[in-house]
């Protein structure tokens, strides 16, 4: 088990290092950042001073090591635009995005698993077909468009919910959260629903496929032959079996939800990391872009690692393989 853990952690580390190189080269080697920071027509002395200050005159490899060294000390550079340490800038936006992403995942799970179970338990029923039709819509319609529709219906036409922004927040454990107040909930509901739709479609499909497979298995037949109630068959056999792929996907999708928040945050004007990166891309604020990407990759790798470990706990067959 320990060997398995070490191996997985090393793998994760390699991925982060590889990605940092790619991202660094991608962002720094293409184009000249100095042109972005100052007016190209400004005087040469200022230019030289800035080049000196940011170390753009050194070889690329040296720049990379300085960058990595700084990163390990928690210094991801300074935003060209905001003139603030990038890490602080991103971390200050992180709670809003996390809150949004987690609420969306929660909505997707609470709706997706029961709907998928039902669609898989009675696959021929009309309700099951309606659920499946909905799931196709859920992951083929672009999410920004769904966001617009939600705004149009619930904010403009019905006037039930605000069209954007985050509303009042309360500080909990050093993080500003919306979900502590009713008004905060009214702000987060639409964006979270929007962000949840894709995952919802995915979860329904996944749960349905798993349920259909398990329900037709010999062990469910055997369990029925033992006189287990249908509730017990679903609760014990089906849930345990589909929990494995669902935990995996849940974990992996948490990462991509953070990334997809970019779109939802723009539509609903939600002040999270996604809004920050879009703004940074439009003004070519490279340090923010680099830091954001490395942070997201880091989050991804960490999530994958945790998912792998949970996966091993859930599936005894994997556990044995890892131990031997």
């Amino acid at each position, binding site marked *: 088990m320990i060997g398995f853990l070490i191996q997985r952690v090393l793998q994760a580390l390699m991925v982060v290092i590889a990605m940092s190189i790619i991202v660094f080269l991608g962002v720094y080697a293409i184009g000249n950042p100095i042109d972005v920071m100052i007016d190209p027509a400004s005087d040469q002395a200022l230019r030289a001073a800035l080049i000196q200050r940011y170390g753009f005159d050194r070889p690329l490899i040296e720049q990379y090591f300085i960058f990595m060294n700084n990163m390990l000390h928690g210094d991801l550079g300074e935003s060209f635009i905001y003139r603030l340490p990038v890490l602080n800038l991103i971390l200050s936006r992180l709670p809003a995005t996390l809150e949004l992403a987690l609420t969306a995942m929660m909505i997707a799970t609470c709706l997706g698993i029961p709907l998928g179970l039902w669609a898989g338990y009675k696959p021929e029923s009309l309700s099951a077909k309606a659920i499946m039709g909905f799931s196709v819509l859920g992951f083929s319609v672009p999410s920004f468009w769904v966001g617009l529709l939600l705004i149009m219906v619930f904010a403009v036409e019905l006037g039930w919910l605000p069209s954007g922004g985050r509303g009042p927040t309360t500080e909990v454990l050093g993080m500003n959260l919306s979900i502590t107040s009713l008004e905060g909930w009214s702000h987060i509901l639409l964006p979270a629903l929007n962000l949840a739709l894709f995952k919802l479609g995915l979860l329904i499909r996944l749960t349905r496929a798993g349920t259909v497979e398990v329900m037709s298995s010999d062990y469910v*037949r*055997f*369990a*029925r*032959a033992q006189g*287990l*109630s249908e509730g017990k068959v679903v609760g014990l056999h089906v849930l345990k079996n589909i929990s494995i792929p669902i935990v995996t996907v849940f974990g992996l999708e948490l990462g991509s939800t953070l990334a997809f928040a970019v779109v939802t945050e723009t539509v609903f004007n939600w002040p999270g990391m996604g809004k920050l990166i879009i703004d940074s891309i439009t003004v070519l604020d490279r340090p923010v872009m680099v830091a954001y990407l490395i942070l997201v990759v880091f989050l991804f790798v960490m999530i994958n690692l945790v998912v792998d470990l949970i996966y091993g706990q*859930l599936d005894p067959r994997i556990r*044995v393989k890892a131990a031997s």
Partner: protein
Amino acid sequence: MSDAVLRVNNLQTQFQTRGGVLKAVDGVSFEVACGRILGLVGESGSGKSVTGYSILGLIEAPGKVAGGEIILNGKDITRLKGDAMRQVRGAQIAMVFQDPMMTLNPVLKIGTQMIAAVRAHAKVSRKAARVKARDALAKVGIPSPDERLEAYPHQLSGGMRQRVAIAIALLHSPAVIIADEPTTALDVSIQGQILAEVRRLADETGTAFVWVTHDLAVVSSLADDICVMYAGRVVESGPAADVIASPRHPYTAGLLASVPAEHEPGTKLPQVPGSTPSLANLPQGCAFAPRCAKAGPACTTTPPVQHFEGGRTALCHYPIEPVSCQPLSLTSTTYRSAS
């Protein structure tokens, strides 16, 4: 036999398909008494497994039990539905399936699955259920049952898993256990151990077994009685030793002749020519007639059930005359009870 614990009478199980109605089981009747083992023999597609599932009410759409009656301990369970049937399954009648690799959930511990099975019918604590599960494992000859409860199915051998399945079937001391080819997927030596165990359990606990199989050698060494099925019908029945010694239906005779163990080495092994007909396209009258050497003009009409002495029947216009020689055994071992 009035002491029958399970009596199946004119059972009809049909499947609604695009091409019409398939009669997978067409008028099957048999009975088993306490502590007896009935061998239900037939090729794949003969309807023997469907018969087993029908008895437990496990036929799923588009299939349904269309007629006949199933009497368990004097009670008609044919029309039981939902929770009423659930309370019979596992408690009064249980089932063991063919492939022990597939019948236990790979991601649940043996203990978890057994405790669920105990608590499906007995309102007992988890702890009491566990004790009962452990005792059941011990009863089927599993060493160190406490450890096995903590194991996952893949940590046990195939034979061990099948013993676990039998232990689960035995949990509530059912009157009847239907075993659907339970030793087919196992090695021959393991198969022998399981058969001996089953014989012992039937004798000691009085549980009746319906042993569904295609393997005549297994039946000849285990079963007290035999039912041979062909295309959804019972074509021959009677005491196992008598049927094997002197088959009266040409199909049974053909099956017996093609068992290698009984055959003179070095000569060509006889076969039953042709193959099992499709249920969607059965010939008129006797379904076996196109493959039968003895078929005559009468065979285009439905054959009658002919009763012979010794409680034997055959579904044939031209049954084979009985031979009066020493009973042959297909295998050197026999698990049949001395009684």
